[in-house]
Every structure is written in structure tokens, then in C-alpha cells.
């Protein structure tokens, strides 16, 4: 199958090795190299839940123009150890080049695509050789692409920054050995004149939150949500925000709620297991009407599951979060840029409606890296409705159900409560008052729907005449679907709801009766079931993947064609 039907100069680089060898870093350096050429990149890192040993690999696909997925078939691959060579040989394109470590792997018979380099022996000329071998990959890539040594030096300086007195001579010696074997094998077309920024989903979410006014972020480490914690912690000072990692997720959620009640735009995040611990507090936010945004980064479960892989198996968990009845908003970004816009929009919505929300995403999103084209100023700003009423009532019963926050808290008594309460926040068990306050909170649901109807809730991508079959997907699976449609030259309309609760049925019901395929990363088809239940959509087929690995666009294109 022709995977590059429109001549985008598609090229894929793969590097594999042990944890601790700098595999992910080598992938990032390759991404940066392609970005220097004005090309678009998409990087996927596959790693295990360990710190040393095991098998890690990084795949970087690049094209002239938009690309939204990595491809598993590589034109150029570097195996830092023998296991990588064995595992990734099958991923090599027919015209590809596979570099193997001649110190760990014996020369393979009869495969003209394999070239040995003394990756370990050269590294042993310098201190801590086991940590250095990853540098060999971008050095070999520079040789394969015919880039000169001056560029290689500048790349190593910019990307590795540390230990340059050893990294540069090591990279240069690998480059020379590589150049002698396959120097200039590939001539990649340059893309646009300007270099596009590269970011991962976690960065996009973090920056979107900052743009919307985030003041405090609370989280306990759990892959794949930790990258958000780490990014925010490393940039806390420059944005004047506070990042706190307390004793557990229960503290995380309750601290964040306390912070929000004290006026801070607060957010907290975890993966499924951690969010389960934060669930009681989610209901607290529903009852006490605290504006709080949870971030849920999904990985395969149940329980500890596959910590470092991807999944959409938490959709129902997110939709049904919390005991009791109260409005909530759940949304999931389908592009890295939308990670920025949607996070800001969600923070703004929860502050407007004073009810909890969940930004749902996946490991493939938080740790997937892509070229982005970001309209920085498109981020919404989170602010509450305010009341200058002298006789302040925290839970004033209004037509929208939204009780404004005090414009000037000085001299006012503001009581937040987890109990059923009256308009002033004093506990009640009285039946009429209970009904009134439940109605007040639930009334916000109608307002949320009215607001969402005026925002963009559903992305629609046309590949064809507008009458083609419809592919429904959401979250980071959207990225896989869009690339599969491009790779396979498929005529289809791709439809992706950004909001999942309330589900924008007003956008979706028009697809009843069209040929439909659903693509999602859930074993039981949670998204397809939701579409059927809420929007009456009945797909011909539900393409599912639940082994923790994101779709490969070529394989997914075949599956879609089969289903249509």
C-alpha cells in the first residue's frame, strides 16, 4: 500500500535500546533535526515501567506538511543493542537502512540493509559509556541524510548541552564511520522556511492551563499524568504558579478544592488509579460548587495495568465520576493544539459554572510529540461571575443555578459545605429546601448545554465529497485516524466530539443513517456505546485496540477500508 499518496516526503526514523541509554532523547534530537529542515514531525516513545534495562524505542515520522502519527515502518533505524535489532528488523522498509551495534550484534547474513557501527566500543573511549550510546543515533542519522559535521556539532550542543567535550567527539567519530557506509543515502526535502515548534500533549495542557489563569497545580506522581506535573513544576517560577506534590491523591484533590475555594484557579491530575482516590472529592466539588478541573491521563487498566502505555478504557469512569447527582463537564482533546485551547476552555467553564470538570486524555497524547501551529491568544480566561450584593449568599438560588462569588470578600461570610445546605451554606435536612438546592445545582446543566451549543464542540474533517462514510473517534485516536485516512487515501468524514459530557448530540444526530465506523482504544467499545445511547448512532464496525500501543496508520487504514 502506498503510504505517501500525496508525496509528502514521508520518512521515519526509529531508535531502540535499553532504558537509560538515552533512547527517548535520541528521538527528540531527531525530531529537532527534522524541525530544523522546516518539516513536520510526530514522535512516539515506547518505554516500559523501569529505569534501567528492558527495551525502549522512539519512532519519529516526518513529512513536508501536517503529519499526525508515527509510522511503524522505518526508513532509517538504529539499534543500540542486540534485542532492538531483533525486534525492529521487521519494521524496516524494503529500501531502509538498519544500523546495528557491531559490539553486541553479529553481522546478519545476506541483509544488505544492515550496517554495523562500533557504538559501544567508541563510547568506551569516554567516561560513563553506557549513558552515551544514544548520541550515536542522531550522529548516524546526520550521516544518512548527508548533513555536514558543523550542523551535527551545533545539534549536539543545542540538544545535549551537558558533557559536550565528550559527546561531540563521540558523535563525530560515529558520524565518520557511518558516512563511510551510507553517507548521504537519503535526500530529504526541506519544508517551510520557518521552524515549527514541537511540543507534547502534556506541555500543551500545561500551557493552556497557564494561559487560562492557573495558579496552583496539585498532583501525585502516576504515569502518564506525571509529565504534566513535571512540566508545570519546572516552569512554576517563570509563570508565578505553585506546584505541590503532597502525600497522596486524596490530599491532592482536597487541597486543590481548598485552594479553589480560597480563590485560586486550581487543577489536579492523575491516571485512573489516582483518580479513583480523588473521586470522593469530585463529589465534594459537585456539592460545594467548587470550580475544579481534574486531568485524567489514561493508561491500560484495570488496576496497575500497563503503566507506560496508552488506553481509552477510562471513558465511562470519567463520565460517571463521583457519587450523587450534579453537573459535570468532560472533554478530550483531539490534537496537541487543542490540548492548549480545550484545557483553557475547560478551566473557564468550570469557573463559570462552579462545578467539577475532567480533561480526559491518554498516554499517547500526553507523551506524544508533534509539530504544532499554535494561536497562543486563542486561550479562554477563567473567571467567575461576581456579585456585589451586600447580603451575600454563597449558594444564592438564581435562574441559571450559578451563585456568583463575592466581588469583595472583605466583611462577607462565605461558607462552602459538603452537607446539603441552605443558600448561606448552613446545613439542612429539610425536604423542601433539599429539593430546591438539588434543583439549583442541576439547573446549571441546562446552562452548560446552552453555552456548549455556542462553542465548537465537534471537529469535522472532510476527506472526500461530504457524502462519504463517517469515521467517529475522539481523543488522541483522532490523530491516528487522520493519519490513517491520509495514508490510505480514504474518502471519509472524520467526526470528533471534543466534549463527551454533555455529549454534543446536536452535532452528532445528523450522522444517523450514514455509514459509520467508530475507532477507539477500548476493549468494550465504550465510545461506540455512548454514541448509541446518547446520539442514536449505530456503527457498522467498531475498530478497537487495547494492547496499550497506539494504532499504526497503515494498519488502521487497512482496518477502516475493511470495515467500509
Amino acid at each position, binding site marked *: 500500500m502506498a503510504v505517501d499518496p500525496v508525496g509528502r516526503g514521508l520518512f521515519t526514523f526509529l531508535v531502540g535500546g535499553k532504558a537509560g541509554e538515552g533512547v527517548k532523547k535520541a528521538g527528540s534530537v531527531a525530531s529537532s533535526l527534522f524541525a530544523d529542515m522546516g518539516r513536520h514531525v510526530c514522535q512516539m516513545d515506547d518505554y516500559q515501567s523501569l529505569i534501567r534495562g528492558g527495551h525502549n524505542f522512539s519512532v519519529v515520522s516526518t513529512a513536508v506538511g501536517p503529519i499526525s502519527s508515527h509510522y511503524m515502518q522505518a526508513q532509517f533505524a538504529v539499534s543500540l543493542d542486540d534485542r532492538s535489532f531483533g525486534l525492529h528488523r521487521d519494521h524496516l522498509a524494503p529500501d531502509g537502512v538498519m544500523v546495528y551495534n557491531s559490539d553486541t550484534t553479529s553481522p546478519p547474513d545476506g541483509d544488505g540493509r544492515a550496517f554495523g557501527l562500533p557504538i559501544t566500543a567508541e563510547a568506551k573511549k569516554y567516561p560513563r559509556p553506557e549513558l552515551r550510546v544514544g548520541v550515536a543515533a542522531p550522529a548516524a542519522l546526520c550521516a544518512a541524510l548527508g548533513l555536514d559535521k558543523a550542523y551535527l556539532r551545533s545539534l549536539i550542543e543545542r540538544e545535549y548541552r551537558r558533557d559536550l567535550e565528550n559527546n561531540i567527539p563521540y558523535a563525530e567519530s560515529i558520524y565518520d564511520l557511518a558516512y563511510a557506509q551510507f553517507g548521504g543515502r537519503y535526500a530529504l526535502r526541506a519544508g517551510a522556511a520557518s521552524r515549527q515548534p514541537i511540543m507534547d500533549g502534556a506541555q500543551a495542557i500545561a500551557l493552556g492551563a497557564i494561559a487560562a489563569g492557573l495558579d496552583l497545580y496539585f498532583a501525585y506522581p502516576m504515569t502518564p499524568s506525571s509529565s504534566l506535573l513535571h512540566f508545570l513544576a519546572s516552569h512554576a517560577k517563570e509563570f508565578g504558579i505553585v506546584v*505541590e506534590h503532597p502525600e497522596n491523591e486524596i490530599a491532592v484533590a482536597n487541597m486543590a478544592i481548598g485552594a479553589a475555594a480560597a480563590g485560586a484557579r*486550581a487543577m489536579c491530575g492523575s491516571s485512573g488509579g489516582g483518580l479513583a482516590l480523588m473521586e470522593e472529592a469530585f463529589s465534594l466539588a459537585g456539592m460545594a460548587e467548587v470550580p475544579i478541573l481534574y486531568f485524567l491521563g489514561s493508561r491500560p487498566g484495570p488496576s496497575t495495568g500497563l503503566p507506560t502505555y496508552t488506553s481509552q478504557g477510562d471513558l465511562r469512569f470519567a463520565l460517571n465520576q463521583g457519587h450523587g447527582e450534579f453537573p459535570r463537564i468532560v472533554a478530550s482533546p483531539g490534537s496537541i493544539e487543542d490540548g492548549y485551547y480545550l484545557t483553557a476552555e475547560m478551566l473557564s467553564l468550570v469557573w463559570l459554572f462552579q462545578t467539577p470538570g475532567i480533561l480526559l486524555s491518554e498516554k499517547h497524547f500526553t507523551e506524544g510529540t508533534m509539530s504544532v501551529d499554535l494561536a497562543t491568544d*486563542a486561550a479562554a480566561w477563567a473567571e467567575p461571575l461576581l456579585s456585589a450584593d451586600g447580603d451575600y449568599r454563597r449558594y*444564592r438560588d438564581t435562574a*441559571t443555578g450559578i451563585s456568583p462569588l463575592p466581588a469583595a470578600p472583605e466583611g462577607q461570610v462565605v461558607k462552602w459545605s459538603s452537607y446539603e445546605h441552605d443558600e448561606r451554606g448552613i446545613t439542612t435536612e429539610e425536604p423542601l429546601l433539599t429539593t430546591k438546592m438539588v434543583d439549583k445545582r442541576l439547573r446549571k446543566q441546562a446552562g452548560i448545554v446552552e*453555552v456548549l451549543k455556542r462553542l465548537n464542540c465537534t471537529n469535522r474533517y472532510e476527506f472526500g465529497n461530504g457524502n462519504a462514510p463517517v469515521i467517529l473517534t475522539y481523543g488522541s485516536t483522532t490523530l491516528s485516524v487522520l493519519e490513517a485516512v491520509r495514508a490510505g487515501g480514504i474518502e471519509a468524514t472524520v467526526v470528533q466530539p471534543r466534549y463527551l459530557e454533555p455529549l454534543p448530540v446536536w452535532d452528532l444526530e445528523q450522522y444517523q443513517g450514514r455509514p459509520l465506523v467508530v475507532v477507539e482504544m477500548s476493549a468494550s467499545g465504550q465510545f461506540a456505546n455512548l454514541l448509541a445511547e446518547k446520539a442514536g448512532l449505530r456503527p457498522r464496525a467498531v475498530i478497537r485496540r487495547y494492547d496499550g500501543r497506539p494504532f499504526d496508520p497503515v494498519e488502521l487504514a487497512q482496518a477502516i477500508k475493511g470495515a467500509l
Partner: protein
Amino acid sequence: MDELATYAENTWCPGCGNFAILGALKDAIRRLEGEGIARDKLRLVTGIGQHGKIFDYVNVSGFYALHGRAVATAQGMKLADPDLRIMVFVGDGDTLGEGLEHVLFAAKRNADITVVVHDNGVYALTTGQYAPTSVRGYRGPSTPTGSVEEPLRPLPLLLQAGATFVARGFAGRREQLTDMLVQAVLHPGFSFIDVLQPCVTFNNTWQLYNGLVEPIAQPASSYDEAMALARRSDRLPIGVLYRADVQPFHQALYGDRNPVRDRLSREERLDGIARLLQVERRAPSLPSLSPRAALEMAMPAHEQAASASQ
């Protein structure tokens, strides 16, 4: 007229030790005003249990939080607004059982909040089950033949965890308790007051405590001496056992800033993001509606503000 009272009906049993804590709190609030701490800078945060009703009875801002989690909620409030003085009223089951980790870690990080435990050795709101501080042999509906566990001793535990102000109060000594509350709120750092509070219905310890308590004039001169005082069981020393001068958590974390009051503007944030990404700031190609503007379109402001109950 008691300006600190609310219209909530008091439903504690006559003779309950909680009345003394309520009275001491109101006295302390008035005395703190004399110390320059305005009432609207105070926050009351409570857990769930008989103790938590104090939230409804005092006309001061705050948060009636979850069972066991008030100490976490309070720390979040303090981190967001370090100008607030936060008093956390919790139960022994609430904070030494359900949410023990939060109080230990608040002590460990020296969070600048005051935690007051209504320590009655029983789950009184849920009809008298044994609690973390119940004596061995305590009979309740979940331990009909008597608890087989030893009680937890909160003061040595909190000293060990790093609390910088540790005190024991007694509901039978309201004035001393008031004084302790004032000192605790003024103490920069984590303050812990374990208040011996008889439950007249399920665990009436008035007589027992009246015979055992022994006021101490001043805090111990060393940590070890404080620990020895805290461990005594022949007598129960009441008063401030220990205090130490250690930089509070929020100051160690971010200095003298107030993260919400001193927050960066939207413009400063967008400039910072553009700088970080090495891109030019850019507006969206298609103007997009903000949620706020969308609400305005759906319902004008005067309609939003209209009372629903008319």
C-alpha cells in the same frame, strides 16, 4: 446578642464537651481581633462528625469539608492565600483514623494551620463506635465484646511527625483553651491541639479527666522533655507542651508572595508562553467565542442574576 452566632439550631447533647470548644473559639476570635487578625481573614475548616457542627454555629467563613480531609482542604486554602489564618476543627476518628496521613504530613511540612482535635474517644455522630483514641476494651456497636486495640496517642505521634506547636486542652478548662487557640493561630507554622472532650452520651470522661489533668505553666524546654510530657499517662499535662520556631511551609515554598493576589496577568502569561515556544503571539484565524460570552448570548446578565425562587 452574640454576633458570632448563626441561626443554626445547636444539636449537641446538654453537657457535651463541644460547648466549651465553641465558647473558647468565639472568645479566641474576639481576642485575635485585638491582636490585629480581622475576622474576615479567619477561616474555619471542619471535618465530619459531631465536632463539625461548630462550622454551622459560628458566623465566620470557611469550608465544611469531607470526613478526614479537612486538614488537606485547609492546606490548599493556605497555599492559595497565605494571608488567611486557618483553624481546622476535626474529630479523633475523623483525623486520626480516616485522614491520619494528612495531619502527619501537615506536621512534617510545617503547614501554617491550626488543627484542633475534638478528642472524645468515640464516633459519636454514628452512634458510638470505638475510635482511634478509645481505650482497649471499649464496647460499641462495632465492638460489642470490647475493642482489642490499644489507643493511638496523638501528641507523641505529632511531635515525632514534626509539629512545631503541640498542646493538650481540656473542655473543662475553657479559659486555658481560649488562650491556647490564640497562641496556636499566632504561631507561624503547624499547630496541633488535642482537646480532651467528654461525650456525655457514649463516653463520659468528665470525672476521669477532672482527676487526671494537670496544667503546665509553660512549654517544655526541649523536644525530648516535651516528648516525655506527651507520653505521661499517670497524669495528663494540659497546656502548650512544645513550640519551635521553624519557617512555615508556604514561605519555604514560595517566599513572601501571595500566589493569587500576585498572579501574572493574562498578557504576561501569553507573552511567557510565546517566549517559551519561541513563536510570535497570534490570535486565532477564526474568532472564537469565550464560554463567558456564550453564556451572555444564551442568557443576559440581568436574567442570570434573577432569583429562581420568585
